């Protein structure tokens, strides 16, 4: 039983990541999409616990000129996004 958390807003002007840190369970996945991908580079996403998998949607990184920090953030195409929603039990959107 695991959950996919979708984040689509900038991590700099919201406090969503801090709130999410308390809401995830071990084995959950977090996928950054849209303006959420700005959390994929640098150290912004360090507030999340280490036992969750962090992903960024590649096409939203590309359009924004964002290069994910490769050792902590995986990148996914739209097919990977779909696969994550299928392999987890539920999806929660944070916006």
């Amino acid at each position, binding site marked *: 039983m695991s959950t996919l958390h979708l984040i*689509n807003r900038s991590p700099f002007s919201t406090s969503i990541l801090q709130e999410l840190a308390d809401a995830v369970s071990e084995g959950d996945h977090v996928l950054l999409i*849209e303006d959420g991908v700005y959390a994929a580079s640098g150290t912004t996403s360090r507030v999340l616990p280490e036992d969750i998998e962090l992903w960024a949607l590649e096409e939203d990184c590309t359009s924004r000129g964002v290069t994910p920090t490769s050792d902590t953030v995986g990148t996914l195409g739209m097919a990977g*996004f*779909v696969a994550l929603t299928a*392999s987890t039990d539920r999806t929660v959107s944070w*916006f």
Partner: protein
Amino acid sequence: MVSQGLTYALMVQGAPYSQQASHSALRFAEALPAQGHRVATVFFYHDGVYNAASMMSPPRDEPHLLERWRALHQTQHCELLVCVASAVRRGLLDEGEARRHGHPHPTLEAPFELTGLGQLMQAAFQHDRLITFAP
């Protein structure tokens, strides 16, 4: 990747042309069949109801979101449901609502359907996954 196909409900809450939510929802929905899944219901709520505005006329070099939703309906046979309470106050009326409010012409047309929130909850009960695309 998954052997058995899943049915999806999407809730679209973002307005077209001002927010990326519609684009993301369409990209996601269009990627479902390649893995054996399909979108069964799209429910438009909050400012997402504006996706159904029938006279939407974007410039030629920008995506025509209403046409994309119509194409999705045709290829995946999904319902395109629009929250009636949200739509009517914002001026999106189908033929029946237009008549009821004394307007001569509709601003929302098939395949979009005005429905109550009961249809959203039923989609949540009935389909395998609910994914929210928000502003």
